[in-house]
C-alpha cells in the first residue's frame, strides 16, 4: 500500500528534470524531498500527482498503475498535493474553500459544511470560517490550504515547500500541524522543504535529488553524514 515512482524520467526540451528517479512513500511516513534549486523536486511531485506525465518510468499506487491519468483521478485515488503558492479560491469563504473538496467527493452541502468546520477547528481557523479567503494572513492561508487538502481524505499528501515564507514560530506551528495530520489521518506525507532544521526534525526519511538524479536516500542522521550530499547540497551549512 505505498505510492511509488519507478525509474521516472522527464525532459523539458534539452533539460533533464528527472533522470531515472525511484522513490516510494509508505503510509504513515513523513518523507523529506530535498536538493538544490533546479534539482527536479517540484517536477517529481508533479509526476507523483498526475500534473506531469513522465517520459519514461511509472507511477504506482499500491501496485496499481497510475501513469498517464489526470490530476483529478490521482486526487480521487487519494493522492493530494499542495502548491508552492497556496491556491485558495479567493472569492469563496474559508469554509467554502474546504467544502469544495468535500462536495467533490459526493457529500451534500450540509454534511460538507459540518465536516469543513470540524477541519477548520483542527487548524485553529474556526473563527475565520465565514470570512472571504482573501482576508487570511499568510500563515492562516497555509493552514487553510492544509485543511482543504485533508478534506479529500488523502492517503498520500504531497506538500511543496509548505513553510516557505513563514516566520520561525509559524513554521513550528506548521510542523506540529503536519505531525498531527500523520497521527490523526495516518497518511503518508512527502515534504519538499528548504528549511533544513525543519526537514531534519520532521522527517522519518529523506530523499536527496541533485541535477535530476537521486544522490542519497536514508534517515536524517545518515543524510547529514553522507559525503555526497554534503558536497552536492548541504555544504558547510549542514554542520
Amino acid at each position, binding site marked *: 500500500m505505498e505510492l511509488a515512482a519507478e525509474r521516472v524520467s522527464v525532459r523539458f526540451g534539452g533539460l533533464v528534470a528527472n533522470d531515472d528517479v525511484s522513490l516510494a512513500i509508505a503510509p504513515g511516513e513523513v518523507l523529506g524531498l530535498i536538493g538544490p534549486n533546479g534539482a527536479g523536486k517540484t517536477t517529481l511531485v508533479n509526476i507523483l500527482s498526475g500534473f506531469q506525465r513522465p517520459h519514461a518510468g511509472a507511477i504506482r499506487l499500491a501496485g496499481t498503475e497510475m501513469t498517464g491519468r*489526470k*490530476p*483529478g483521478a490521482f*486526487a*480521487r485515488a487519494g493522492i*493530494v*498535493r499542495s*502548491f508552492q*503558492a497556496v*491556491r485558495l*479560491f*479567493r*472569492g*469563496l469563504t474559508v469554509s*467554502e474553500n474546504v*467544502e*469544495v*473538496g468535500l*462536495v*467533490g*467527493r459526493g*457529500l*451534500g*452541502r450540509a454534511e*460538507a459544511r459540518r465536516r469543513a468546520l470540524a477541519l477548520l477547528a483542527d487548524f485553529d481557523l474556526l473563527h475565520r470560517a465565514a470570512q472571504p479567503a*482573501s482576508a487570511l494572513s499568510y500563515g492562516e492561508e497555509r493552514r487553510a490550504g492544509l485543511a*482543504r487538502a485533508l*478534506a*479529500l481524505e488523502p492517503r498520500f499528501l504531497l506538500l511543496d515547500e509548505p513553510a516557505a515564507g513563514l516566520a520561525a514560530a509559524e513554521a513550528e506551528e506548521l510542523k506540529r500541524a503536519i505531525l498531527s495530520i500523520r497521527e490523526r489521518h495516518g497518511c503518508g506525507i512527502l515534504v519538499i522543504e528548504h528549511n533544513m532544521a525543519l526537514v531534519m526534525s520532521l522527517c522519518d526519511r529523506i530523499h536527496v535529488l541533485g541535477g535530476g538524479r537521486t544522490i542519497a536516500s536514508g534517515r536524517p542522521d545518515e543524510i547529514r553524514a553522507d559525503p555526497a550530499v554534503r558536497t552536492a547540497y548541504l555544504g558547510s551549512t549542514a554542520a
Partner: protein
Amino acid sequence: MMGQAIQVLVDAVSVGGLYALTALGIGLIFGVMRLINFAHAQLIMIAGYAVLLFFAQSAALAVLGAVVGAVLLALLIERTAFRPLRGADPATLLIASFAVSFFIEKTMIMLVGSRPKGVDFLSALARQVEIAGVRLQLLQLVTILVSVVLLVATTWFLKSTRLGLEMRAAAENFRMAEVLGIRANRVIATAFAISGLLAAAVACLFVAQTGLVQPRMGLQLVIIAFVGTVIGGLGSLPGAAFGGFLVGVATILLQALLPPELRVFREAFLFLAVAVVLVVRPQGLIPARGLKERI
C-alpha cells in the same frame, strides 16, 4: 412630470432586468469555460420559436416549450461544439462560438425563412395599470418581477447548493477545482442548462413585448449584454448582472433624455460611456477575484 419620470424609470428598470438576465447567462459560461458564447443569441431565438409554436394552445405550454427548447439546444451546443474544444485558447473558443451562432441562425433561416412572424403572446399583460396615479404597463412590472426572481434564484443556487459551490470554485480556478474532485463535465453542462433557462425567460418576456419572432432575434440583446458583462467585470457574476442592468437602464435613459435629433445616435453615446468606464476601470466595476492567479 413626476408621473412621467416614474414611467421612464420603470421602463429603464424592466429593460435593465432583461439585459441583466442575458448578461448573467453569458457570464456563467464565461466563468466556467472562459468562453464568450455569442450563440446565446440563438438560445433566445429558439425559445422564441418555441413560443410561436405553442402560444395558441396555452401560455404555460409556450413557456415550458421555450425552456425545454433553449435548455436542450444549450446542452447540445456544449456537447457537440464546445466540449471538444475544452482548454483551447479563448480566441479559438470565441471564433467557435461565432461559427455555432451563424450556423444555427442560417439553418433557421433555411427552415423557416427570415421574415418576422407575429406572436400574440401574453397580450393580456400589455394593458396599463394605474398605481398611485401613475399609469404603468403591466408587462413591464411582470418583467421586473421575473428578473428579480430569477436573479435571486440564481444567487441562491450559486450560494447554497452543492453544484452552485462547485460552479463558483470552477469559475475562479478550473484546474484547482478539478484537482479537488469537481467533475468538469457536470459543472459545465449545468452552467449551459442554466444559461438556456435564463435565455428562455428573456425570450418569453422579449416576445411578449415585441410580439415578433425572427431568426435574427437575440443578437442585439446579446451584444449589448456582453458589453454589460465587460463593464461589470468579466468573470464576475455579480458584475455581469449589474453591468447588464446598467447598460439596459442607460439605453432607456439616453432614449428619454437625449434631444430628439440625437436619439438616433443613442448607441454611440452608450458606447462612449462604455469606453469611459473601461478607461477609468479596466477591470470592470465589480472585478472578478482570482482571475489573474489561475494555474
